[in-house]
C-alpha cells in the first residue's frame, strides 16, 4: 500500500514536471525580468541612469495621474466582472439545461471568440461613435434629441470588455450549474420554492465556485487589456495598459513601464486571491473532502 502510494505520487510529480518547466520558462522568468527592469534604471531628463533604484515606484505612488489610472483600471475590471456575471447567469443556466436551445446558446456565446479582439473593438467603435448605429437609432426613434458621447468614454470600454470577455465567465458558470444534480432543484420546487427562490437559495450558492473563477477571469482580462481600452477609451481616460504602452513605446522609459506593469500584476493577483479565498471560505463546509 505504502510503496504503491509513494510510486503514485512520484509518477504524479513526473507528470507535472513538463508543466512546471513550461511555467518557469515562459511565466516566472519573464515576470522576474520585468520586476528586474523596474529597479535597475531610471529616466532622468530624458537620459537613462543605471543602478539599483526604487525611484520608479516612488514616482508611480507620488504622481496622482498614475494612481488615478490604476484605480480606474481596477474599477473597470470589477465592473466588467459584475456586469458579465449578471448577463452570464441566464446564459449559463440555459447551457446547463442542455437540449437544442442550450447548444444554440453555447454556440452564440463561444463563436465571438473566433473573431479577433481588434476587429470586435473596431466594430464597437463604429456602433458607439457619434454618427454610429446606436446614436442613429436613438435620434430617429425620438428617444434622445442630442445623444451623449459614448465612444471614448469608460462606458464604451465597459460595454466592449463585457462583450469580449463574457465567454470566460459563462463557461465556468455553466460547468458549475451543470454539476448540480437536477433533483436538488426539483426538491426545492417540491418544498415550495418558485423559480426565483430556487435560483437564490439553491443555484446561486451552489454555483459559487464557478462564479469565483469566472469573476476572476473577466476581472483579470479586463484589467490587463490593452486593445479594447485603447480603441474605445481613447486617450482621455486611459487604463493602465495604455499608460504602460506609452511609457515603453512612445517615451522609451522601459523601467517605469516595467514598474507600472509589476504594480498591475501584484494588484490583479491580490484581488484574485480575495475572490478565490472568499469562494473557498463560503463553500468549504459542503465541498471539502467528502465522507469522514
Amino acid at each position, binding site marked *: 500500500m505504502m510503496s504503491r502510494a509513494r510510486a503514485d505520487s512520484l509518477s504524479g510529480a513526473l507528470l507535472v514536471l513538463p508543466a512546471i518547466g513550461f511555467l518557469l520558462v515562459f511565466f516566472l522568468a519573464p515576470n522576474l525580468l520585468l520586476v528586474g527592469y523596474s529597479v535597475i534604471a531610471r529616466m532622468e531628463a530624458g537620459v537613462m541612469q543605471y543602478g539599483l533604484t526604487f525611484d520608479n515606484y516612488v514616482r508611480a505612488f507620488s504622481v496622482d495621474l498614475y494612481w488615478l489610472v490604476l484605480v480606474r483600471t481596477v474599477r473597470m475590471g470589477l465592473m466588467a466582472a459584475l456586469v458579465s456575471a449578471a448577463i452570464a447567469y441566464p446564459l449559463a443556466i440555459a447551457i446547463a439545461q442542455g437540449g437544442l436551445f442550450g447548444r444554440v446558446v453555447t454556440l452564440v456565446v463561444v463563436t465571438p471568440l473566433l473573431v479577433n479582439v481588434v476587429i470586435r473593438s473596431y466594430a464597437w467603435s463604429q456602433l458607439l461613435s457619434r454618427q454610429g448605429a446606436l446614436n442613429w437609432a436613438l435620434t430617429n426613434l425620438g428617444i434622445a434629441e442630442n445623444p451623449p458621447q459614448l465612444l471614448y468614454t469608460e462606458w464604451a470600454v465597459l460595454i466592449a470588455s463585457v462583450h469580449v470577455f463574457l465567454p470566460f465567465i459563462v463557461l465556468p458558470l455553466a460547468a458549475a450549474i451543470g454539476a448540480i*444534480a437536477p*433533483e*436538488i432543484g*426539483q*426538491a*426545492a*420546487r*417540491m*418544498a*415550495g*420554492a*418558485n423559480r426565483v*427562490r430556487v435560483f437564490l*437559495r*439553491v443555484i446561486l*450558492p*451552489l454555483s459559487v465556485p464557478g462564479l469565483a473563477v469566472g469573476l476572476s477571469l473577466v476581472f483579470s482580462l479586463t484589467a490587463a487589456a490593452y486593445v479594447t481600452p485603447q480603441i474605445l477609451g481613447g486617450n482621455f481616460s486611459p487604463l493602465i495598459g495604455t499608460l504602460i504602452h506609452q511609457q515603453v513605446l512612445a517615451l522609451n522609459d522601459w523601467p517605469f513601464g516595467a514598474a507600472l506593469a509589476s504594480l498591475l500584476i501584484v494588484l490583479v493577483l491580490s484581488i484574485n486571491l480575495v475572490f478565490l479565498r472568499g469562494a473557498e471560505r463560503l*463553500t468549504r*463546509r*459542503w*465541498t471539502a473532502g*467528502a*465522507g*469522514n
Partner: protein
Amino acid sequence: MKTRSAGAHLAIEAVTKTYGKAKALDAVSLVIEPGELLALLGPSGCGKTTLLKIIAGLIDPDEGEVLVDGLGMVRLPTHRRDMGMLFQNYALFPHLDVISNVAFGLEMRRLPRAEIEERARRALDRVQLSAYSGRMPRELSGGQQQRVALARAIAYEPKILLLDEPLAALDKNLREGMQMELRALCKQLELTTVLVTHDQEEAMTMADRIAVMRAGRLEQLGSARAVYERPENRFVAGFIGTSNFFPFAGERSTGALGATIPGRTPGGDALLAIARDGTLPEGGAMVAVRPEHVALSVSRPAAEANAMVGRLTQILFRGAHMTAVLRTDGGQEIVASAPADALPPGLAEGDAAWAHWKAEHALIIEDK
C-alpha cells in the same frame, strides 16, 4: 402533528405522455384513497418515474388530468402543489446543514421564525435524527441522508408524499428496516403516498395496493395479495413472484364465475384449471401455477387432476425452502418449491418423479 387532517384524495385521469414517438405513458388512470399507500411497480423504463413526476408537476402530461381532492393540478406549478417527495439520490441541499434542510419548506411558506424552528425540530425528531441537526449532508450515511430528506418532506405537512425508489441505494438490511419505518410513518401521518419501485418485495411489504405497470400502461391494480394470488395476465404472474406457465387450449367456457375448465397443453397433457370470470381469454390462454403449489411425489398421485411426470434436473437448497426443477418428456420445465421436510425423502437429481397441483391453483390467465 396528530391534529392534521387525513391525506388527500388523488385521482389520475387518462394521463398520456409521449417522448418523440415512444409512449412513456398511455392513458393511465387510477384513484388513490386518502391515507392510502400505493406502489407503482414495473420493470425499468415502464413509466413509473414519469407518472410520479407528472403528479408532482415536474413533467407536464400531453393529455389527462391529475386531481387532488377534486382539484385539477395540471396547470398548477410544482411549488404550489403542497406535496413532498423523496428521491433515490436523496437530493439534500449540500450547502445547508441538516436542520436548515428540514426547515427549507417551512421557510418557503414564510412562517414565523419560532414556528419554523419548532416544526423543523419536531420533524427531525420523528426520524430520530435530532442529534444531527448541525451536521452537513456529506457527513451523514445514506440511510441518515434519506431520513433527513423524509423529515424535510414531512415538515411542512404535505397532503401527498411521493417516493421515487427512495431506498434503492441502501444495502439490503437497512432497506428492510426502513421499509417498515417509512410505512409506519406514512400511516401515522395518514399521508396519501405513491411509492415507485421495481422491487416487488418492497412493493408487497409497504403498499396497501400495487399498480403493476408495463410499457406505459397499467396492467393490474389491487392489494399485494390479490395481485399475487389472482394475476390477470402472464406479465403480472411472472413479474410478481414466479410462476410455471403452460400454454392452454380450453375445451369450453362455462360463464360461471370461478368455473373449472378442462383443457390440454400443446404436448397433450390434460389440465384442469379455473377461470376467474368463467371464460377463456380471447387473446390466447395460459395456465399459471405458483411453485409453492406444485407438489412432488415418486408415484402417480391418485386423486389429482393435474399431474405430469418427468425427471428432476435440479434440487436447490434455499434456506427456508427447497426448489426442485422437473423436466417432462415434452420439454416443459416445472418448478416446485416447498419446505425441505415436505419433499419426498430419497428423491435426488436425475430421478423420475411426478409433479402435481390442485385445479384451484391452476389459474387461467391471458397470454400477454
